[in-house]
């Protein structure tokens, strides 16, 4: 059995009277690819926001990489190696594609503001390292030809991939993808599936947690799936089990007349 990287125990979150997440449990191991699916409003993105510490949970514990992160800040958790993308692409519009990827490494690059202001030697060294790592990641994911482009000028599917590259460049222990196929056309979804398969080969140590609506994507790449509905986990299992689960079919297609 591989080492457990993320363990969530009995997680709760209410917004006013609405129960967004109710008694959620989850375990992710190194290199695993897990999916969370469910209809709109099932609390999937809330789970992500709780794990990445944008929200505070009402109850429950989150353990990441052997440490309890329930009360850590978003910045601390990010620096521990938890990386994520967002439902609506959130690339930094003022920066080129390469700079967008570089900025994901910048918080950890250690040279001071004074060294930056007066171009001291360490600044050059660290900048070189950052550029090389970012270019390597872009090349690995076949995005290097877009390095100098502005992200706003790229097609949506490519912006998604750049966002994933930006989240991957720091070699995170856990990568969380929030609806990576949202807003993509069918052809782009297939490209994304290939892209994700390729990515897993190249970053075998990174565990991936994915929220998705598009069944073709989830069923194609996830090893294990959690199904959420109204904050509760209604089913879990591998793709074939999920596809034949009556509770899931009910949640997705409604009650039979």
């Amino acid at each position: 059995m591989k080492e457990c990287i993320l363990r969530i125990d009995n997680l709760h979150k209410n917004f006013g009277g609405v129960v967004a997440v109710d008694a959620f449990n989850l375990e992710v191991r190194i290199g695993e690819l897990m999916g969370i699916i469910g209809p709109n409003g099932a609390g999937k993105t809330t789970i992500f926001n709780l794990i990445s510490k944008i929200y505070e949970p009402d109850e429950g514990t989150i353990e990441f990489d052997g440490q309890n992160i329930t009360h850590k800040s978003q910045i601390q958790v990010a620096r521990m190696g938890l990386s994520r993308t967002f439902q609506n692409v959130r690339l930094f519009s003022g920066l080129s594609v390469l700079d967008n990827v570089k900025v994901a490494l910048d918080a950890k690059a250690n040279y001071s503001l004074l060294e930056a202001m007066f171009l001291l030697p360490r600044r050059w060294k660290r900048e070189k390292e950052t550029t090389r790592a970012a270019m390597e990641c872009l090349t690995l994911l076949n995005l290097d030809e877009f390095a100098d482009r502005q992200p706003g000028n790229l097609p949506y599917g490519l912006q998604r991939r750049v966002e994933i590259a930006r989240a991957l460049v720091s070699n995170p222990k856990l990568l969380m993808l929030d609806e990576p196929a949202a807003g993509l056309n069918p052809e782009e979804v297939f490209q994304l599936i290939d892209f994700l398969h390729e990515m897993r080969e190249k970053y075998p140590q990174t565990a991936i947690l994915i929220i998705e609506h598009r069944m073709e994507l989830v069923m194609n790449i996830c090893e294990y799936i959690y199904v959420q509905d109204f904050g509760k986990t209604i089913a879990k299992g591998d793709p074939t089990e999920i596809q034949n689960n009556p509770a899931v079919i009910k949640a997705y297609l409604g009650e039979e007349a």
Partner: protein
Amino acid sequence: MSAYQISLITLTCISVITVSGVFTMTSLAGMFSLGQAAYMSISAYLTFCLARYLNLPIWLTAIVGIVMSGIVAFIISLPSLRLRRDYFALLSVGFGGMVLAIVILLGKWTNAAVGFSKIPKVNHLVWIILGITVLIVFVVRNIKYSRFGRMCIALKTDEIAARSFGINVYGLKVKIYVVASVIAAVGGICFGLRNRVIAPDSFDWSASAEMQILLFFGGTNSLTGSVLSAASLKLLPEFLKGVSIFGMNLHDFRTTIYCILIILIINFRTKGLMGEKELSFKLIQKLAKKINRTVKKGGSK
């Protein structure tokens, strides 16, 4: 050089220094402040009052003035940068007013609204100010092209996304605010040395607003644009002095001309004159090639 030319050069340089400071905070980190002139006054009053009353050399008191501005900026930034951007801008106006009120309260030493004029004369001032200007622009440029510049632009666009990459948004804003205020402080001392008199009027919120206008005119995300507009708009009234149409001197219409220019920019180039373009060797090479090609084409016809 004639005294007039020197005064024009120093005027331009001071404008470039202060606008570079505002560029660091507003263009890079997205903090809009109308109180930067207050840091000019803190450092200028400290420098010249200490030099006068304690008989210390000016370079020493200048260091004290700049360091004190930095410390004040640090203290002010701790609570105010926790606020939302619009409240931060409001607070900066209040801060500017507060500093000037203190200057007037200490009228016994600062000479209050009349202005403090016991400022020593410094030789070769124009070269010193030119040197400082070049240094400041160099430093600001280096910040822009470092990890700090990238992180600033990231947090300006999207704070939550920036945090999700481990960027300490609050800490970085404090750092940048202190740097911008120190640059303003340097500008304040240069201002005092040039004018040989400092009065609260010259550091009020309209002085801070002018810096922002010059910045937005040149291009919100372009250091080159900001520097060019800081220099050219500051010199514009002087050129207008020599021009007259229908017997009227354009210098008398300088406010109107400013406003027309700004309205034109806001309407037709929302991102400022230069937008996001920077002057770099690559760009110059590209332009040279373009010109070369067009010249050749013209020749073959």
